[in-house]
């Protein structure tokens, strides 16, 4: 595969793009704040002694809405893209996306139960109430992935082939149960579920952000350490074993990372498609298949793409807002096609 950009150039470009995305995400929104107010409010939030007169609105918008939203976008984008790389490496299949081991469908099932049956569950302690949907989604994702992983185990070995098929079957099963809940749902719950399936960064607050951030940071720090092992796995399982990689342990780690990362991302922001599948391909098209580059570059690219998509999503229909899942595919897919066509000639 041709390398379009050297790793160093790629990282510099991506970092600049990411900084630009962060800046736009903090500076732009339906409420138009003067640039200087945004800056001053930002400095004040960092604890610097800047005069705070007439800054209440800017501080509120920046501190309570845009900063948590930007952090959420960065974390979710990075984790989804990283999980995508891990999936494609684990299954040695370019079509693998994090949904394949059942995380997404499990999370969607959990969410459907919370949205549609939530009211009749009742008796939730009020402290937990804002988290019910997230907890159900996260648990659903972990549970279904756990089942898929168990089904893939044979005599101490994990067969990725069987895991893949088990994932497809579990996704179908979860889909049919979601269908049943959809049928039982009233109109309002149905709309909520539909929107949840398209994902959003709207309504991000610190309280709901911290659990996700902790999981995401763990995954973001952990996965790139396994870059060499993933490179070896590219050659095939037995080859990797001969190279001294503990393949079973690697698989277990990868599945756990994917389940935790995607589970947390989906629980916080709903199902955001495209990032996990396409961003790794994008990076590989540009930088070649070396996981030592692909992993960190995908994390940066995923975070950047999601932030750009979010800025677009919140501005294009303001004061209403587009679900971000629509935008990621709308921006990303044509760009990906462009790279594909360019690579062919």
């Amino acid at each position, binding site marked *: 595969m041709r390398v379009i950009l050297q790793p160093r150039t790629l990282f510099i470009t991506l970092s600049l793009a990411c900084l630009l995305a962060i800046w736009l995400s903090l500076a732009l929104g*339906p409420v138009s704040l*003067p640039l200087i107010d945004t800056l001053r409010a930002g400095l004040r939030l960092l604890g610097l002694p800047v005069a705070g007169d*007439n800054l209440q609105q800017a501080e509120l918008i920046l501190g309570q*809405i*845009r900063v948590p939203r930007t952090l959420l976008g960065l974390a979710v984008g990075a984790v989804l893209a990283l999980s995508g790389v891990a999936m494609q490496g684990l299954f040695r299949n370019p079509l693998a996306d994090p949904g394949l081991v059942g995380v997404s469908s499990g999370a969607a099932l959990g969410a459907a139960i919370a949205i549609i049956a939530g009211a009749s569950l009742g008796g939730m302690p009020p402290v937990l109430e804002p988290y019910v949907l997230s907890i159900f989604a996260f648990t659903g994702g972990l549970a279904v992935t756990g089942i898929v992983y168990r089904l893939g185990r044979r005599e101490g070995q994990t067969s990725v082939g069987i895991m893949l098929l088990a994932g497809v079957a579990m996704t179908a099963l979860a889909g049919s149960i979601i269908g049943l809940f959809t049928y039982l749902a009233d109109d309002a719950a149905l709309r909520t579920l539909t929107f949840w399936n398209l994902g959003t960064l709207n*309504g991000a*607050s610190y309280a709901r952000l911290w659990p996700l951030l902790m999981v995401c940071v763990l995954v973001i720090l952990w996965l790139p350490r396994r870059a060499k092992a993933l490179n070896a796995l590219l050659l095939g399982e037995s080859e990797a074993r001969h190279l001294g990689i503990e393949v079973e342990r690697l698989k277990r780690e990868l599945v756990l990372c994917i389940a935790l990362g995607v589970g947390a991302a989906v629980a916080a922001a709903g199902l955001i498609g495209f990032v996990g599948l396409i961003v790794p391909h994008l990076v590989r098209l540009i930088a070649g298949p070396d996981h030592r580059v692909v992993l960190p570059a995908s994390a940066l690219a995923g975070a950047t793409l999601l932030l750009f998509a979010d800025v677009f999503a919140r501005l294009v*229909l303001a*004061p209403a807002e587009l679900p971000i899942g629509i935008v990621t595919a709308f921006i990303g897919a044509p760009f990906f096609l462009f790279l594909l066509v360019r690579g062919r000639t």
Partner: protein
Amino acid sequence: MRSMTKLTAILTGLLFTHLASAQETSQRWVSAGGALTEWVVALGGESHLVGIDTTSQHPESIKSLPSIGYQRQLSSEGILSLRPNILIGTEEMGPPPVLEQLRGAGVKIEVFSAGADVTALQGNLKKLGALLGDEARANQLSEQYTKQLQGQHDWVAQAQLHQSAPGVLLLVSHAGAAPMVAGAGTVGDWLIKQAGGRNLATHTGYKIFSAEAMTGLNPQVLVFTDRAQNGASSRDALLRENPLLAATQAARNNRLIEVDPTLLVGGLGPRLPEAMKTLSKAFYPTDGSLNAKVSPAQ
């Protein structure tokens, strides 16, 4: 640098005095509920509205207001950009984290009932009247509504002396396809009952029925509403997509009545009594003489 800060201070100062004066002179309301928006307008509060959700479709004059999207998928910063003091909506409004952020930003959030019953409506009107500072008018509208319903009730009672209540189904479809049937707890069900019909569907909420099940219930009157079309084309679409319906008494006797889909969303709205009157007349067609004596829902 110093002149720069000075300039910004002046500019922001200007901006904020502008904001402050706008807030002092008028209340700025955002409404996230179709029926509520109609009531605000009916109570003379249209000038307060600065934003509406996608379920607010009536009256025509409010359609030029900025749309804040669907009531369950509100955007905090989007709403804040309209600088409202009050956000009104039903308990369906959400998501909760966004409402929390809005509350934190000093927007007063007033939640109303979307329940399809008169007590809920009276409560809503009372609250709206208090918020708008025109309780007298709210009381008047509330009493008028109750009176209209009472008149309607009397008319139906009279009509039922001559004819038993017809069995009715209310279908909501999209260009005729996969009609959903209104069951208990819906505004549609309430409308049928108030108009003197017997809702043949016994489930709760809206459910998709097979054409066979609908035909099996054999309604005497079909009330339908279409989100995609209206008039003769929606009626044709319904019969074309569901040919079995032609076997029902309703289709054979040509008793298909269309209602406006926006009537059925977000609780009881001000246009319902009018729709009810039309339905009643269609439910009890032989009572032309009665129409002259006790006119319904006046």
